[in-house]
């Protein structure tokens, strides 16, 4: 009896550990465009994201250099002059979906998302919402929020100030696959 109990507890503990959803090809984009000027926006298709469906904890990581701009020179300036991508190659997010309950998601459900976004080594608290929806076995997480270059000590010289928006829209869409 005790043996069975022990085995049972071990199994439960194991399954609790394994409830994670993951992707390496998450889509993150930002838009800092100002009307009447060249669009300042870029897409990243290699964001890694992990969601623990037991407690709603979420973490994501992306490489700054993996942001693709339509204009190559803009991408070069972004990395070299604004983001110091060699010194700070990664941006990370660590947060939690509040009152998360995996079972409560039937088709899709919106949760509050809180966490800390770290860019150029500078942390910034993010408070937004995220929508989770089921796609077969997979989970799709979508969200958006605004940040400002000054939150991360990103200096914008006077010459180009008019061409870069003061608030930057960040959109993300991650299709998470159950991690074995």
């Amino acid at each position: 009896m005790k043996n069975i109990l022990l085995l049972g507890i071990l199994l439960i503990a194991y399954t609790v550990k394994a409830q994670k959803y993951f992707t390496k090809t998450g889509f993150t984009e930002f838009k800092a465009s100002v009307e009447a000027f060249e669009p300042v926006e870029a897409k990243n298709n290699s964001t890694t994201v992990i969601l623990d469906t037991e407690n709603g904890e979420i973490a994501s990581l992306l490489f700054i250099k993996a942001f693709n701009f339509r204009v190559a020179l803009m991408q070069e300036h972004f990395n070299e002059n604004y983001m110091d991508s060699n010194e700070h190659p990664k941006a990370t997010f660590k947060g939690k979906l509040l009152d998360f309950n995996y079972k409560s998601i039937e088709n899709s459900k919106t949760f509050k998302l809180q966490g800390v976004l770290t860019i150029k080594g500078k942390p910034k608290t993010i408070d937004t919402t995220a929508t989770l929806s089921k796609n077969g076995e997979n989970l799709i997480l979508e969200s958006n929020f605004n940040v400002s270059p000054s939150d991360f000590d990103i200096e914008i010289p006077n010459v180009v100030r008019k061409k870069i928006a003061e608030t930057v829209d960040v959109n993300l869409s991650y299709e998470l696959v159950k991690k074995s």
Partner: protein
Amino acid sequence: MIKIKNIIFILTMVGNFICFSQDDLLAELESEAEYTSYELPAFKTMTIVNLQSTKIAAKKEFYFFVSHRFGSVKDGFETLFGLDNANTKIQFVYSFFEGVQFSLSRESWRQTYSGSVKYNIVKQSSEFGLNLVGFHIANINAEINEDLFPELETSDRWSFAHQLLISRRFSEKFSFQLAPTYIRENLQDLRAVAEANYNQFALGGGGRFKLSKRISINADYVYNFSRDGNNIYNNPLSIGVDIETGGHVFQILFSNAQSTNEPGFISNAGGDWSEGDIFFGFNIVRVF
């Protein structure tokens, strides 16, 4: 026995618990995330000063260059330190395919028309520490005529240069490049070069040092191995400052070569630094 079982039971639970609490999600991602990161370009624009750099226009990028070299500073007041006798080159660069650029230009020095191609072989990345680029240029000298050279043939107007550009961005501030060069000059003016060297080998070296994010000091030098001692031309040394302002790059420079083409500046640099016989000039680069 019961006691022992209990102890094992507790230990297992504790073990599990420790496993679970150690499970930092971000740390787990760090180990999963991988990315072949390409190094940023070693140089801001297509030339270090006179020497071609490993920078190539991106696909569908269109660049417009104006390269200007005033006359020799040595001429003094007579030409207002070289305001007259200037050489101007207008050049268009376009990339149809990723990693390959084509260029057409015309410079006033010997009324030279030229076409060139530059292509990427390897990019510096976390996997490989160098940029390798191939560069080929063909020039037509439209200035010479039968009055100057009675036995002139069309082929005499042509000159060519082929370069392998090897660069590395050593740090945020410092980049360096080597450029083994082969030159073919069909016309040899024996009054100037003393001995005919149709085929020449040269080695170029150049570097940049960034003073700030948008300003750098650049220099390049080319040693020509195939030059006769009585040749009137010298090896070109060029020193300049790059100023980048978003879509433009300004290069302000001094050089002992007035031509801005290969092999023009490599084989036919008429000035001499030691005599103050140098040319002031600038390159303006605009990207569309």
